[in-house]
């Protein structure tokens, strides 16, 4: 059953998975990071309290997070077609991945930033820092180790989601696992894709932890 076309398939699948995961993570951070920061700063105890914005953000985040990814994947198909012009393949999968991951990332960012000692923020305010300066010079740099750990968690979660997109022909290793391993009972193929997914998760997690540790000056 094994031939070179299978190898090509696996290699291609691996690259598709990495492409989907990394592109989605990047795009999801572009949306999720500011959302997470706003969740902290607009809080009633935050540096710029904005109750309405805070409540709205919280509701949006909670709703998006409570929809199972598989349902979201199908529900946003019209939007996916509008943005990418197609509904299958890895580029198309990026759209639902970003929608699902951004609110999750917002929560991760929120909790990382909340770990920063309020005393440090108060001190920077006492020196005349503007809210924007507090965010860019205090909150984010001080939360850096924790943000990096969060990014590793986000990346691996998105990787897991991307595999699920195989159900609707999303491309990548998940797609291969479903088409060959599930529909055609090719157990060997299934095992190989799973092993590769595990290895990629390990890699992201380890690299993330190492960088976070190196960046942490608190001890």
């Amino acid at each position, binding site marked *: 059953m094994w031939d070179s076309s299978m190898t090509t398939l696996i290699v291609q699948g691996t690259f598709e998975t990495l492409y989907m995961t990394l592109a989605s993570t990047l795009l999801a951070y572009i949306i999720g990071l500011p959302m997470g920061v706003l969740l902290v700063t607009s809080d009633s105890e935050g540096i710029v309290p904005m109750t309405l914005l805070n409540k709205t953000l919280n509701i949006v985040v909670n709703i998006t997070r409570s929809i199972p990814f598989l349902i979201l994947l199908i529900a946003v198909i019209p939007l996916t077609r509008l943005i990418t012009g197609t509904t299958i393949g890895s580029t198309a999968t990026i759209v639902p991945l970003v929608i699902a991951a951004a609110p999750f990332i917002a929560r991760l960012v929120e909790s990382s930033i909340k770990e920063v000692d309020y005393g*440090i923020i*108060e001190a920077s*305010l*006492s*020196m*005349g820092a503007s809210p924007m300066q507090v965010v860019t010079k205090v909150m984010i740099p*001080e939360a*850096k180790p924790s943000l990096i750990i969060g990014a590793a968690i986000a990346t691996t979660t998105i990787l897991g989601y991307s595999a699920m997109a195989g159900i609707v022909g999303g491309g990548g290793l998940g797609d291969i696992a479903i088409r060959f391993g599930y529909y055609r009972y090719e157990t060997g193929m299934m095992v190989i894709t799973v092993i590769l997914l595990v290895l990629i998760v390990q890699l992201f997690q380890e690299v993330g932890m190492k960088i976070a540790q190196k*960046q942490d000056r608190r001890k």
Partner: protein
Amino acid sequence: MILLFKFVDRRRVRNIETKKTSQKPIIEIKALGKTFRPKSGEVKALEGINLSINQGDIYGIIGMSGAGKSTLVRCINLLEKPTSGSVFIDGQDISKITEKELRTVRYSVGMIFQQFNLLMQRTAEKNILFPLEIAGVDKETAKKRTAELLELVGLPDKAKAYPSQLSGGQKQRIAIARALANNPKILLCDEATSALDPSTTNSILKLLKEINQKLGITIVIITHEMSVVEQICSHVAIIDKSKIAEDGEVEDIFRNPKTEIAKKMIFSEGDQGSVIMGRNTYRVVFDEKSSSDSVIAKMVLETKCLVNILHADMKNIDGFAFGQMVIQLPEDELSVARAVHYLRSHQITVEEVGTHVG
């Protein structure tokens, strides 16, 4: 007795010379009030506060925990927005200006904290650079200023160290350097020495005094320790139950505390645990009129009444000893009467106390 006085004196010697301060208030607080409104009810943290702090003063604000002193210091740079009243910095009512103008005012009001609040992800040097970045000072000037400040606080070799590699005292020195970066006119200290051991506390207080004298910066010190006020403050305000109980020059307040809380703060310093007393115990209070001679020793000699000193706490202010002493007198009533009479005739306040003194 003399020995006791000497011992206490040496420990508590204060520098009495008052520095000439120009009589222009740099901080003026008028009818200030702050009420917190958490979901459950209302908490009045400050009420009707009036304070005027002159240029060049080292002004102590002292009170028990929960008295509102930390809220008060935060009202001076508006980290807490007062619910009523106004705060003037250098004649400008800062409760009426925009956020942007307030930020500029804050460049000239440095602040240090009990927990130092250094940026943990930045080196000492970069921490001092931080307020200069905030104020938009050009890199060249900022770098020079940072080096100067590290020199001023005596830590030029720690430029590249992260806060986690520094001791408490070193962290506070870096925090002081950081607070001074933008050449402030005022330095606010919120329990700045409370997390430090006694000898480090002394060195930090010395540094603050030096800064005050060399740079002429007005310093406001929030503390719960009378010894801090004694060591470096020129003026003091005693805050109790959200109000100012008493304020004025340190010597005046120490010499003649009028309110209960002031007496309590001044006389019971260091007396944390209560002393268990037997019968016939008396509290002897020394003030300006008394205590220049070894009164107790003379009393023992003259009345032949043997005295047991259970507790003494004296301070030397302006060459006079102030403080209190708790003594136990013998059982027999006659000698007690003689002793009490002797002390009273020397204008010393004597009162019988219960079974414990706190």
